[in-house]
């Protein structure tokens, strides 16, 4: 059974005075399994963030249903239970940190859940170790780099012991090193703690590392599957002005010219391995 289920979800903003409601999700159905790492990609305005915000009841469907661990997000009484299970990390780390010391910031979530102080202490330490920020526990958040801030924000979510973390473009404002730190952290949490991950991203090379890629376009799911299945559909993605990793594009174009190459290469190493046998001696 799926951990999160979106069942024929539609969502409309508004309407403002004298306006028609503006529908941004049209009949979207998607299941996310426990422990899965799912990348959600698409243009701005494709509905990917809107869909993801349904996964912890930040938004409620205008039509259809969303279930988290079997709980209906429309049920107001279950909202806290749902948010305890699914944490949300946003794009801008500066908007998410509230305290003046790193460990206090991480403690904010469990405090609000009414966790006992000794247990809070244990959770905060564990969470900071999990994101490799334990040595910074007494620092001021504003002095940290973007990647470090984002990891503290993730620690704040982990301290609430969620089953699932939804990350909405967590690397969009980070430099390459910060991006890698955050990605490594998220992959490790998925692998070692079994936390279900929904990663919204513009970066196709980030998506290539997920178990499953879901491509949103114009409020609908354009295609989904393993990264290999999705990125093999270069034509479809290009027709919708979506990128593929450069490794994928190179192999695809050379294959199109008649070279004997596999349908898809996901990263530089795969691409090199595919090209090597074709070199004239």
């Amino acid at each position, binding site marked *: 059974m799926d951990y999160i289920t979106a069942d024929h979800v539609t969502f409309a903003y508004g309407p403002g005075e004298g306006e028609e409601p503006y529908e941004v999700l049209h009949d979207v159905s998607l299941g996310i399994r426990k422990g899965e790492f799912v990348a959600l990609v698409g*243009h*701005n305005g494709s509905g990917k963030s809107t869909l993801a915000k349904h996964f912890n009841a930040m938004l409620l469907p205008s039509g259809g249903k969303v279930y988290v661990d079997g709980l209906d997000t429309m049920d107001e009484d279950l909202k806290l239970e749902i948010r305890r299970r699914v944490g949300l990390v946003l*794009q801008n780390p500066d908007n998410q940190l509230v305290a003046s010391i790193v460990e206090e910031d991480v403690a904010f979530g469990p405090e609000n859940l009414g966790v006992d102080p000794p247990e809070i202490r244990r959770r905060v330490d564990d969470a900071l170790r999990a994101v490799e920020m334990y040595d910074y526990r007494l620092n001021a958040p504003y002095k940290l*780099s*973007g990647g470090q801030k984002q990891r503290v924000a993730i620690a704040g979510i982990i301290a609430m012991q969620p089953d699932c973390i939804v990350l909405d473009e967590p690397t*969009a*404002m980070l*430099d*390459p*090193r*910060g991006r890698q730190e955050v990605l490594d952290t998220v992959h490790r949490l998925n692998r070692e703690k079994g936390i279900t991950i929904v990663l919204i991203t*513009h970066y196709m*090379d980030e998506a290539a590392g997920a178990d499953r890629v879901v491509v949103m376009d114009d409020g609908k799911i354009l295609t989904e599957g393993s990264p290999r299945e999705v990125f093999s559909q270069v034509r479809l993605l290009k027709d919708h*002005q*979506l*990128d593929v*990793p*450069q*490794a994928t*594009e*190179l192999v695809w*174009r*050379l294959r199109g*010219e*008649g*070279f*004997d190459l596999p349908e898809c290469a996901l*990263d*530089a*190493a795969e*691409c*090199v391995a595919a*090209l*090597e*046998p*074709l*070199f*004239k*001696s």
Partner: protein
Amino acid sequence: MFVLETKELTYIYGAGTPFEKTAVDHVSIGVERGEFLGVIGHTGSGKSTLIQMLNGLLKPASGTVLLNGGDIWAEPKKIRSVRFQVGMVFQYPEHQLFEETVLKDICFGPRNMGLADTEAEQRARRAARFVGLDDELLGKSPFEISGGEKRRAAIAGVIAMDPDVLVLDEPTAGLDPNGRDTLLQQISDYHKKRGSTVILVSHSMEDIARFADRVLVLNEGKAVMLDRTDRVFARGRELSKMGLRVPQITEILLMLREKGYPVHPVLTVEQAVEQLRPLLRKGGVRRGQ
């Protein structure tokens, strides 16, 4: 003659305190008139500090900045005019919009230069066209337009001053791939049509690869490379050590070269296809079969 030149330029934050940090360390570079220069470097490498010295927003601890051959600090009272000649677009420039209408906002720069209203408006409309802002948007409040449009309006405000050098600090941060491509294409078109010098600071190696003629690499406050874009990216392994990453396509060709294949690093997929085509064998027979 260089349009901009720095000589042993140095900037120190918190000089004389225990937190003293040399952010820019004896940087000597020349920016050629009309070139599109990319600036890359890890966070904390001194990029932002360096560019803020180029138009006199920060005063160097030592060293000089020459604009069209003249020291910009020769007469400190005239530093304001330097800011019209070296136009600076900061990160998230849309946060700085404040006027009643988009048009008035774009006019702010040229009017500050002392231009008459009609001339300022003419320039503003021309700048708006460069960045692809529709005429109908110009009468709206800056708060009624989308994030991408706000960014364009803010950039137009700097272009409207018709600077000799346009400096952009991460102009595409937070935009999606479509928005990023469009904006950079417009900046590139502006660069070509006006023949002005553009300095682009970016974390995106792909963007730099596509548009920059030359690249300046900063590391720990020092200028460690300044060369043609392809030559800089050919030194991908050195860049990795500085926390920078070359585009994936460049990485692929670097890996092939390291394995002994006669390829050289390129910057785009098209260039890679052109280069690999004659080197690869068609037909189903693979080596060792």
